[in-house]
């Protein structure tokens, strides 16, 4: 690597060529004040705060945009520099109001800090300051233009980091303002990162506004408990209340390289809700009444023992949530195996529970790290709207594309919200995705790259056939294949709609074939990753939270309950009444149980049916570990003690075991991880003491090439497209909700409070439907109406319905047996 050596304030340092003077100084521990600089974005030199004096340069130079060169001699604290910086601050303060005592930013404001360190004590300007009316840009962002110093960090964060471009600068010169254009399709995703980027109090968070002074908040490092991206965050709490969540900062920095989405920033307040369960509840005379933990444990142990003795362990089932910590899940498994002696253990990987599929096992075996996305030359995203399901994985894709490293190939019937960052957008008709992957891309690869001759001979379809089936013209496949073949590093990501696809098996085989084919190429490394849905889905998968030998998956348990074979069910943090098909049938099945025990934060729809309800703690009160989608195990630290009698899930599980006569001798989550490390392959490394701030990757054997196999896809035909007013329904988690927990978050409900059905613009035009209009979805099983949302880039013939709204019984419309979800759409 080329390096240059320069001297800053008399200290010499050698840095890689291309390093800016600012970053070189930082390495030496020399602080240069900044406003507009943002490490992840191109410098724009707007604020003139980082001026330094460089020998042989006639004028002061901005250190953020000046590249260090050999022999450069830099001074950061000369009289000239200090005078210039003092001048800059004096200029900024001409218009900046001195309302720090009532400003939310006070105490963490860069202007305040820099003025204190570098600024003048008094201003020579005594004219009136400019005045704007403060206004809310939307439900979470408040803009006070009076305080803005026009560093444009917010605008650049929005456009270049998140790829949204919702914020912009309008007008010019001293009239310049930050604003949002309203009424367009480019809508704010409410990620709140512009608020994080603002160095002053111009952009403030409405939910946090005037709640606290920042210095009285206790800061606790944590990990987001929504999706599987494993975003690091900092909880800012006062007593037992979370007041704000921020991107996790490196100490001493103003700006973080960690980022959060709307759920991360604003989805926390369910933790503070008064509706949280605070004591165990036992059903007595048909009513759930508060009882002590002793009574609860005693009752549970008695019931479980009785059922186990009479009907055997097989008549008991455990349904655990992928939201639980790794420790909790491990103990749930241990409870099932060692004490209840039942193979009936499951989690809701799909609304029917887990499933067996060899291709899936192989594809999910060695997840690509999210970091791998940023260095890959080709990134393929298959079968998920990544902007909704994995917002931070999306951010990494955009980052790679922004830096011109990776080319993005998407394969999905709908838009993925990646906008101009996609190089090859393949949009197969809904129902033909397996064909597009397994026959289209693969065939195109055999025509553009030197693939294994044996594999080539097995692919005897033509691209024309695939084009007809998928609606994608052959050249698009060929171009995408060229990009794939030419890349040194490739990452293939596939998401939830692959797992919920009517032709899941073929879809997974098709993906495996694509990987196998890429692996047969001489050049390049291919990594494939399943993008799971929930914070610890990966942990649940790796721990094997699935039925044991001859055990029942969730759906099987429900059927067994109906038949009277399953007598007891222990539901931990899961809400099948909302997340499973046919809630009415599930309710009937649960009603037949002798003993239903539910452990949760709230009295959920499922908990309301229970005989015994146990109050668990939220992620903020828990000492726990989550395994992110890419296998990164990260530790949560409790921000405060549990509310009243709520207890951590692991603690309840251990208590239950003890009540049943087995003392695991566990006193802390660390003990559990030590035990897990012994019993679960891959977890050997995950010792709590070693996890530290950044977490550790689980120990997956990562071979150069994945042990995938070529899969013959027999007798496959794509789904026949529906016509007229019949549509395929896709049920998904939208960006603002995830499962049913987020429905307790006030702010998220404000952002996305009511259910809707989304249709493509083309179909809306064809059926003469307009935005917001009420439409009825109807099947043989039932019907209900929803307001319509029209989206430009949605696949024809599909309707997207969010799964998160309990008032919309979308799961009621379909039977468990139907894999393809068809409805009739009626206006009105």
């Amino acid at each position, binding site marked *: 690597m080329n390096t240059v050596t320069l001297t800053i304030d008399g200290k010499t340092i050698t840095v890689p060529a291309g390093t800016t003077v600012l970053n070189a100084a930082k390495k030496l521990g020399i602080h240069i004040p900044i406003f507009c600089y943002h490490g992840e974005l191109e410098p724009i030199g707007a604020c003139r705060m980082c001026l330094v004096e460089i020998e042989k340069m006639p004028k002061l130079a901005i250190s953020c945009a000046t590249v260090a060169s050999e022999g450069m001699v830099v001074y950061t604290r000369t009289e000239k520099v200090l005078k210039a910086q003092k001048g800059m601050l004096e200029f900024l303060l001409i218009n900046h109001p001195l309302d720090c005592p009532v400003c939310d930013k006070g105490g963490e404001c860069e202007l305040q800090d820099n003025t204190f360190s570098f600024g003048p004590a008094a201003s020579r300007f005594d004219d009136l300051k400019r005045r704007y009316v403060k206004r809310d840009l939307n439900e979470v962002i408040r803009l006070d233009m009076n305080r803005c110093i026009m560093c444009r960090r917010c*605008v650049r964060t*929005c*456009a270049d980091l998140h790829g*949204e*471009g*919702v*914020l*912009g*600068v*309008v*007008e*010019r010169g001293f009239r310049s*303002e930050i*604003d*949002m*254009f*309203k*009424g*367009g*399709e*480019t809508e704010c995703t409410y990620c709140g990162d512009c608020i994080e980027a603002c160095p002053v109090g111009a952009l403030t968070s409405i939910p946090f506004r005037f709640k606290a002074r920042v210095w009285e908040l206790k800061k606790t490092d944590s990990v987001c408990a929504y999706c599987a991206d494993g975003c690091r965050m900092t909880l800012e709490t006062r007593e037992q209340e979370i007041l704000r969540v921020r991107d996790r900062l490196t100490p001493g920095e103003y700006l973080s390289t960690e980022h959060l989405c709307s759920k991360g920033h604003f989805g926390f307040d369910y933790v503070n809700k008064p509706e949280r369960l605070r004591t165990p509840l036992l059903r007595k005379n048909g009513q759930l009444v508060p009882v002590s933990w002793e009574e609860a444990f005693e009752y549970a142990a008695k019931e479980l023992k009785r059922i186990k003795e009479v009907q055997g362990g097989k008549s008991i089932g455990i349904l655990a949530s992928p939201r639980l910590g790794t420790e909790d899940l491990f103990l749930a498994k241990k409870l099932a195996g060692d004490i209840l002696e039942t193979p009936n253990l499951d989690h809701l990987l799909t609304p029917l529970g887990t499933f067996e599929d060899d291709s899936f096992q192989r594809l999910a075996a060695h997840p690509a790290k999210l970091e791998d996305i940023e260095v890959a030359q080709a990134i393929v995203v298959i079968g998920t709207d990544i902007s909704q399901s994995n917002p931070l994985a999306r951010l990494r894709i955009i980052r790679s594309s922004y830096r011109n490293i990776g080319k993005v190939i998407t394969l999905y019937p709908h838009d993925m919200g990646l*906008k*101009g960052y996609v190089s090859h957008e393949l949009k197969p008709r809904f129902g033909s995705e397996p064909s597009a992957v397994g026959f289209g891309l693969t065939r195109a690869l055999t025509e553009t790259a030197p693939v294994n001759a044996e594999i080539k001979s097995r692919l005897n379809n033509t691209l024309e056939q695939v084009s007809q089936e998928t609606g994608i013209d052959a050249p698009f496949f060929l171009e995408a294949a060229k990009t794939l073949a030419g890349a040194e590093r490739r990452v293939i990501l596939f998401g939830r709609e692959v797992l919920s696809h009517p032709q899941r098996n073929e879809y997974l085989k098709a993906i495996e074939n694509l990987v196998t084919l890429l692996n047969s190429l001489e050049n390049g490394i291919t990594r494939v990753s399943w993008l799971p849905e929930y914070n610890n889905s990966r942990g649940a998968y790796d721990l094997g939270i699935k039925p044991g030998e001859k055990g029942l998956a969730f759906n099987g348990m429900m059927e067994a309950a109906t038949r009277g074979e399953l007598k007891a069910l222990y539901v931990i943090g899961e809400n099948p009444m909302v997340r499973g098909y046919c809630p009415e049938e599930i309710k009937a099945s649960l009603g037949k149980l002798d003993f239903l025990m539910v452990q949760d934060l709230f009295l959920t729809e499922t908990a309301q049916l229970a005989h015994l309800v146990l109050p668990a703690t939220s992620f903020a009160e828990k000492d726990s570990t989550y395994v992110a989608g890419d296998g990164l195990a990260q530790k949560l630290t409790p921000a405060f003690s549990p509310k009243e009698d709520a207890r951590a899930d692991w603690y309840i599980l251990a208590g239950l075991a003890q009540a049943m006569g087995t003392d695991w001798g566990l006193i802390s989550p660390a003990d559990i991880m030590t035990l897990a490390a012994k019993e679960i392959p891959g977890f050997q490394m995950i010792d709590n003491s070693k996890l530290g701030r950044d977490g550790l990757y689980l120990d997956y054997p990562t071979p150069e090439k994945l042990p995938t196999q070529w899969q013959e896809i027999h007798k496959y035909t794509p789904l026949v497209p529906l016509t007229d007013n019949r549509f395929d329904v896709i049920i998904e988690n939208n960006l603002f909700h995830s499962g049913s927990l987020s429905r307790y978050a006030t702010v998220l409900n404000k952002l996305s409070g009511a259910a809707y059905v989304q249709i493509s613009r083309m179909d809306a035009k064809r059926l003469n439907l307009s935005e917001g209009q009420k439409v009825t979805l109807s099947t043989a099983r039932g019907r209900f109406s929803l307001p319509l949302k029209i989206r*430009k880039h949605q696949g024809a013939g599909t309707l997207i319905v969010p799964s998160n709204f309990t008032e919309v019984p979308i799961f009621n419309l379909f039977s468990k047996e139907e894999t393809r979800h068809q409805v009739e759409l009626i206006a009105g």
Partner: protein
Amino acid sequence: MSQVSMQSEPLDLKPLDEILSEYAGRTGTLITILQRAQEIYGYLPPEVLLHIAERGDIPLSQIYGVVTFYSQFYLTRRGKHIIRQCDGTACHVRGAGKIVDVVEHELNIVDGETTPDYKYSFEVVYCLGSCGLSPVAVIDDTVYGRLSPEKMAQMLKEMH
């Protein structure tokens, strides 16, 4: 903040599509596209901005920024006749202020406004580059020099 007015009747976006096709795939053409769009529609209604954003994959906020940056672009519907009265130094000392008063009084609008019947828009500008003819006004691209309040009043009457 500049006001954005919503057009009541649907716009014909076909001519705009032709312009956009002409510049498709070329970068650095936004200002030209906006200028030509404004020639067609007289101003830049939000539908036009949205369409340009969508077809060109340019963030709307960026287009909005450009439109508000340059005074040549208008976000509100303008009058059939556009009256620009100079009130630059030369014109000012020769009594342009009084001419401005006449226009404002006669049309009952102030600088930057358009009459409710969309017949006239009035702007006060600073130097039209013809100080020798001061006071100067430009009405619909025709320059009128050596004006007086009376002359302006007469011209407005004749335009009616």
